[in-house]
């Protein structure tokens, strides 16, 4: 029965700063927004698309998707009301597209609408989305917590430049979800109350939801697992023995969900040397003096014990991997060769390639020493990884110098800073990344030659390894034409292997789950790495 | 009166201090009595244990690291006799300030800088007399009147630093007398005061003693004051009592050699009558006999010439902090000091003597006028030139303790001026320091001591040695000897005169001790309210004083003879005029009448009388 279970307390140690996912791309804000705002369809924990506000998932079979793959027709569920009691219509959907696609708005989810030519309301309950070019996988706009539907009546004065000034709207959006915002304090606390207009009269079971921000991962986990003050803690990524110690208190469990997040090492194929003039460092103009040797890259990968890394850093929340795209199943390569560490083979490989052991046990060739600068962001697990990898590499005769950068700088993308991951003024670097939705194609497409960061694109672009293989670029171009899912998967596996196993330009380490601590007193939680973690908050209930 | 029971009986007092080199005895086996209405004077040279004995009576030595090791301090209270040495702290608090009060030696530091005079005065009254704030304030006002502080209303609201040294001393006196104690301990109460005010204070204590039957323990090094005040006298020497007796007996037929020597060494006003040149002081000890030569300069040509010197301190106020008034500390002063001669400046506290000295050295910036030293215009010099010029003129400051850096060894302090001017190498400087130590008759072993480890007189000699280190042509000695006891004073003065004779140094000698001035000067200037009212050779000024203020000053000088006491009625007390004038105020220039060659007397403006 709605509202019978009292209050549920959720702690997000990274506090949400807005409820409007179109104005912030931060996961924390998207999660907060998903409690109130809903998309037409969601992803399940398995990565499948299921209807939310839509009556069904459009497909070629049911006529929802046109034969030429250029238009999608969404049928909306009838009888859905906004929390203010007004009916939810196709107009709202069309407005949402207009809102995000407004060129002055700076919409954070613009990528979701990429390739969308127009969105029209055909009738009260029908929406037609037209794409510029054929789309084999059209489930981006209005699918998943990143692009939920906004109420036209509430946001119609907030288009374009006015978007950020609509504080009241951005903090208290009217939604169709299980809860409504009662009080919003940016970066601090959000209190929600059950939505009286929610379509399922029995839900949500909780009358109120409190979302508290602040602190750190350990404190959040502690509040759920040890003191029991909270029911759910988001993103409790801690070392396995700490989690185990907290779970011993018997108040809750730390659960993991696997999406597409992979912790990996990027190898810089260009020369980052500081002796080069500024603007030419780490650009295609100057190949890397040692890392262009494939044997070296391969040896670096072989020397790593991914099993151990996973065990130490993530425990059950991680799996060793050799892939850049670990999921969905159709795209995941069978590539497991790297999972066994083989120091001796790595040494042999280097010997063979002419790298001989020199002074101090460091290999050298033609006066070049195997000395690498290894950078990553400040993060306890990553620093442990650095230490371990440094040791393994030293065993095969590679000397490693470590460097850490503040995450806000490292990921900050500031073209003026030498320490961003895109500038990559180091030889190897480690970070994690994933893709949204269940279509890895755009993700793989970001490793093409022209996506290499450099001065000409203000150091944006995600091909940080500066991997450049015409064959790869050609395959990517081909892929957009392919519709058959099985064929697409096979193509994806091929591309993935090119980047990893074949070239070792990217050395995947761990397939990471996102972990959250859940109290034993909280039922109905289904962790989801493809969509917002609170995607099914309407089903949550108290376990007596 | 004499057959009354003694108020205080000190029996076999011994005070010891724990020091790093083991215990040191400050006072040994001291016994004396004081009866109600009696004034007991304690005299003796510096470090002889006078202050320590006084502090013991209040049990304040304990807070300074000392300890009453032996003896009884019996004090007659209403409840009966108590031994102060053993009284519980609560009883002591009740006695302190109430039944026994003390005037401390150093007026500069004895007052708390952050409370107003009124507050500090009222405190004791509130504690002991149970007065309300308003009552205590009214009483404090009376007290300030009693110690003859001008404008007492305003003073109550002022802070200690806003008063001149003399006023501060009077506040301390008022504080001690606040509760009408039955025993008043005065530790050198008048050292900082000029003769006229000293006379007033002495008269006040004397009156209270007579009127209220208060007993007084009076500590001083000034035999003239003793002669004026004492009923009985205790003479101390190195922690022991050497002689005790009624004042007449001590002065006329001293038994002990030490007492005789002490008395003989006292300079007396008038004893230089008829002599032109200054002569060395009498010394107390054999082996220190100064050559009895008068100081006659070889070439009395002008070295320092000061013309129309004015120094004003701004008094700021208002929103924009404009200067609303000015303290006319020095007003149109002209004087000349010849090479090898001494010019003395005398005058009451706050009349601008120190400021004149400091202006000449440009330690304060004069407002206008000319100063030339050996033909060089001092006021026109830039910072670098001034530093060079200061090599030739040195100052000995009023308070030797304050003017020495407490953190520095004596050796380093004397070496400093030589370092500053890059004189000699290390070895040469060491030699010179050793010579200077010999010169001022300090053992060379003192070189590594710190200022607080010396007695007052020794510190003064260090200050002199420092001034001499550069072989200056002019020394400005600001109250260089007023804090010293007779014997040390004589040594120091003789030293200065000897140096003058040998090296031809000129001196500007600032003092309020008229008897000393008579002894050392070639010329004398009398200052009043920032102006020189009379100037001339010593003989002219001392033997034929013309200006009324000069005459008043001479009349106030106490005489070291108990039979020639002055009573309050002899002295005509009048309030001190204020040197503060509004900004626009342009004082008339000083015009002088030359009564005799070189003897000038101020005629316009009429500042006094």
């Amino acid at each position: 029965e709605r509202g019978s279970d009292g209050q549920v307390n959720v702690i997000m140690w990274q506090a949400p700063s807005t409820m409007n996912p179109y104005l912030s791309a931060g996961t924390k804000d998207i999660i907060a927004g998903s409690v109130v705002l809903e998309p037409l369809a969601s992803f399940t924990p398995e990565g499948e698309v299921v209807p939310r506000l839509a009556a069904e998932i459009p497909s070629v079979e049911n006529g929802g998707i046109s034969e030429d793959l250029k238009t999608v027709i969404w049928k909306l569920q009838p009888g859905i009301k906004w929390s203010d009691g007004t009916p939810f219509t196709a107009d709202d959907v069309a407005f949402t597209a207009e809102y995000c696609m407004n060129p002055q708005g700076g919409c954070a989810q613009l990528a979701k609408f990429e390739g969308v030519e127009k969105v029209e309301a055909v009738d009260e309950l029908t929406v037609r989305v037209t794409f510029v070019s054929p789309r084999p996988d059209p489930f981006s706009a209005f699918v998943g917590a990143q692009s939920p539907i906004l109420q036209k009546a509430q946001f119609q004065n907030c288009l374009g430049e006015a978007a950020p000034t609509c504080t009241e709207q951005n903090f208290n959006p009217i939604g169709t979800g299980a809860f409504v915002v009662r009080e919003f304090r940016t970066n601090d606390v959000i209190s929600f109350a059950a939505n009286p207009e929610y379509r399922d009269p029995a839900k949500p079971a909780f009358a109120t939801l409190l979302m508290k921000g602040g602190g750190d991962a350990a404190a959040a986990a502690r509040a759920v697992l040890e003191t029991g003050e909270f029911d759910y803690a988001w993103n409790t990524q801690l070392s396995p023995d700490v989690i185990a110690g907290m779970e011993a208190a018997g108040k809750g469990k730390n659960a993991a969900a696997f999406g597409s997040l992979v912790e990996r090492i990027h190898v810089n194929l260009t020369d980052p040397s500081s002796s080069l003039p500024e603007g030419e460092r780490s650009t295609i103009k100057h190949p890397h003096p040692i890392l262009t040797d494939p044997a070296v890259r391969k040896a670096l990968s072989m020397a790593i014990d991914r099993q151990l890394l996973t065990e130490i850093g993530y425990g059950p929340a991680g799996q060793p991997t050799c892939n850049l795209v670990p999921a969905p199943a159709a795209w995941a390569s069978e590539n497991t060769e790297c999972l066994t560490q083989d120091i001796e083979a790595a040494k042999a490989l280097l010997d063979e390639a002419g790298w001989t052991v020199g002074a101090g046990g460091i290999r050298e060739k033609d006066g070049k020493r195997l000395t690498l600068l290894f950078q990553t962001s400040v993060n306890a697990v990553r620093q442990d990884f650095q230490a371990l990898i440094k040791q393994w590499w030293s065993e095969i005769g590679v000397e490693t110098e470590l460097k850490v950068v503040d995450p806000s700088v490292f990921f900050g993308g500031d073209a003026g800073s030498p320490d961003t991951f895109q500038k990559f003024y180091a030889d190897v670097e480690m970070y994690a990344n994933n893709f949204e939705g269940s279509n890895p194609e755009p993700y793989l497409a970001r490793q093409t030659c022209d996506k290499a960061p450099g001065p000409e694109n203000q150091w944006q672009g995600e091909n940080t390894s500066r991997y450049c293989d015409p064959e790869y670029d050609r395959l990517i171009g081909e892929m957009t034409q392919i519709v058959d899912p099985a064929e697409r998967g096979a193509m994806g596996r091929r591309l993935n292997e090119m980047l990893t196993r074949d070239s070792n330009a990217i050395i995947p380490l761990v397939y990471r789950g996102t972990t959250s601590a859940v109290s034993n007193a909280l039922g109905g939680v289904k962790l989801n790495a493809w969509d917002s973690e609170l995607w099914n908050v309407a089903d949550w209930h108290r376990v007596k | 009166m004499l057959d009354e029971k003694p108020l205080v009986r000190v029996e076999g007092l011994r005070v010891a201090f724990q020091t790093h080199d083991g215990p040191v005895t400050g006072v040994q086996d001291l016994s004396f009595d004081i009866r109600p209405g009696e004034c007991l004077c304690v005299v003796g040279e510096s470090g002889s244990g006078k202050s320590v004995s006084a502090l013991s009576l209040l049990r304040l030595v304990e807070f300074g690291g000392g300890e009453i090791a032996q003896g009884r301090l019996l004090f007659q209270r209403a409840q009966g006799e108590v031994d102060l040495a053993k009284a519980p702290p609560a009883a002591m608090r009740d006695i302190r300030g109430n039944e026994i009060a003390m005037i401390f030696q150093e007026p500069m530091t004895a007052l708390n800088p952050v409370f107003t005079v009124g507050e500090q005065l009222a405190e004791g009254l509130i504690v002991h007399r149970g007065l309300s704030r308003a009552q205590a304030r009214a009483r404090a006002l009376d007290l300030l009147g009693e110690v003859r502080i001008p404008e007492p209303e305003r003073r109550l609201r002022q802070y200690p630093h806003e008063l001149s040294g003399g006023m501060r001393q009077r506040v301390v006196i008022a504080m001690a007398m606040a509760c009408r104690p039955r025993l008043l301990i005065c530790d050198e109460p008048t050292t900082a005061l000029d003769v006229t005010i000293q006379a007033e204070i002495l008269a006040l204590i004397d009156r209270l003693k007579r009127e209220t039957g208060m007993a007084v323990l009076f500590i001083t090094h000034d035999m003239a004051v003793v002669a004026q005040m004492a009923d009985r006298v205790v003479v101390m020497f190195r922690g022991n009592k050497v002689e005790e007796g009624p004042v007449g007996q001590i002065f006329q037929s001293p038994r002990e050699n030490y007492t005789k020597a002490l008395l003989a060494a006292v300079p007396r006003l008038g004893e230089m009558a008829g002599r032109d040149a200054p002569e060395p002081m009498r010394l107390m000890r054999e082996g220190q006999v100064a050559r009895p030569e008068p100081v006659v300069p070889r070439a009395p040509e002008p070295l320092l010439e000061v013309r129309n010197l004015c120094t004003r301190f701004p008094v700021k106020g208002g929103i924009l902090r404009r200067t609303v008034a000015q303290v006319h500390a020095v007003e149109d002063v002209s004087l000349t000091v010849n090479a090898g001669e001494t010019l003395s400046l005398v005058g009451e506290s706050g009349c601008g003597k120190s400021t004149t000295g400091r202006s000449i050295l440009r330690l304060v910036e004069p407002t206008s006028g000319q100063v030339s030293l050996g033909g060089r215009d001092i006021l026109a010099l830039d910072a670098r030139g001034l530093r060079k010029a200061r090599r030739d003129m040195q100052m000995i400051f009023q308070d030797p303790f304050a003017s020495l850096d407490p953190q520095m060894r004596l050796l380093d302090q004397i070496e400093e001026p030589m370092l500053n001017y890059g004189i000699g190498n290390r070895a040469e400087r060491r030699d010179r320091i050793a010579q200077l130590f010999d010169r001022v008759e300090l053992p060379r072993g003192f070189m590594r001591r710190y200022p607080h480890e010396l007695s007052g007189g020794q510190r003064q000699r260090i200050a002199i040695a420092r001034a001499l280190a550069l072989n200056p042509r002019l020394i400005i000695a600001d109250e260089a000897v007023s804090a010293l006891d007779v014997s040390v004073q004589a040594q120091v003065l003789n030293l200065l005169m000897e140096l003058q004779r040998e090296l031809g140094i000129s001196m500007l000698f600032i003092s309020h001790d008229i008897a000393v001035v008579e002894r050392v000067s070639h010329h004398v200037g009398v200052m009043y309210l920032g102006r020189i009212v009379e100037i001339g050779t010593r003989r002219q000024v001392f033997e034929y004083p013309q200006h009324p203020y000069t005459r008043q000053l001479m009349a106030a000088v106490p005489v070291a003879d108990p039979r020639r006491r002055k009573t309050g009625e002899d002295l005509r007390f009048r309030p001190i005029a204020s040197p503060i004038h509004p900004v626009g105020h342009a004082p008339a220039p000083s015009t002088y009448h030359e009564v005799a060659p070189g003897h000038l007397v101020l005629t316009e403006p009429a500042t006094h009388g």
Partner: protein
Amino acid sequence: MLSFALRRLLLAVPTLLFISLVIFLLLEASPGDPLGDVPLTVPPEVKERMREALGLGQAWYVRYALWLKQFFWVEPLYWFDRVFGTGFSQGMQRIISFQSRSPVFDVIAERLPQTLTVVGLSYLVGVMIALPIGIVSAYRQYSWFDQIGTFVSMVGFSLPTFFTGVVFIIVFGIKLQWFPSIYDTTHRVTDWDSFLVQLRQMAMPVAVLALYNAAQISRFMRASMLDNLRQDYVRTARAKGLSERVVVLKHVLRNSLIPVVTVIALGLPAVFGGAIITEQVFKVNGLGQLLILAIHANDMPMVMTLTFIFAVLIVSFTLIADLLYGVLDPRIRYD
């Protein structure tokens, strides 16, 4: 004194303007981008659009001038409107945070109460325990009290709050369950019970911070007391028959407070600035946490405004310290 204060206030205006310029340039020059928090999945073109939407396309001096106008003109007008119901600020752009897209001042107003109660109270408590400890430690130098006080305060100072805070949580929050480990900023005190709840949730952060503050202040207090206890006027006060309590607490204390006032006054702006680590540990989302988040998110308008407000506080508190100096020590002249 009043005129001195006025003069200093006048002087403070150019000083603050200069400080604001320096802060702006510093923020401008320091690395980081407001879009740093945006996940890597967002493509660069989209980021570029978002950046422009934040107004980052303009030259720095234009943005600085805009900020100045907003801070000194629009915001005061807005608050004037709020109070008097007028409409002067209609249509004017207030300072908007990059992160939350809400007016910076609203967020600050929301944060101020918890910062002031927790950090302010801890400072008060800290000062109140530091002064007696410093006084007694000096009066009884090298006594047991002094030794223990020194020991505790030095250990308290040398252990960072991220450590002591967690120890407190583990001991009192988890083991003993006395206090909640998470501060509830929405809690309203309406009656006695809710007041007790408030007290309980404030206990740990206040204790941790107070300990840290007290450690520092008590050291300065002790040193200053030691210097003054040796002065002559203390003897004079004793000779008046005042009790030791009055001698120490009135005469010596007043003099010793002079340098300590600087320490205390310098610490006060930090109260408004919040205690970043402690707020983080106990989830008291106050101004400190706001600032640190804003810095990490490169939220220029927020950082700039907060920092500038601190600058204003610092300048005013140094002025207050200087004035207090004058009150405590009449010898100090203002010219």
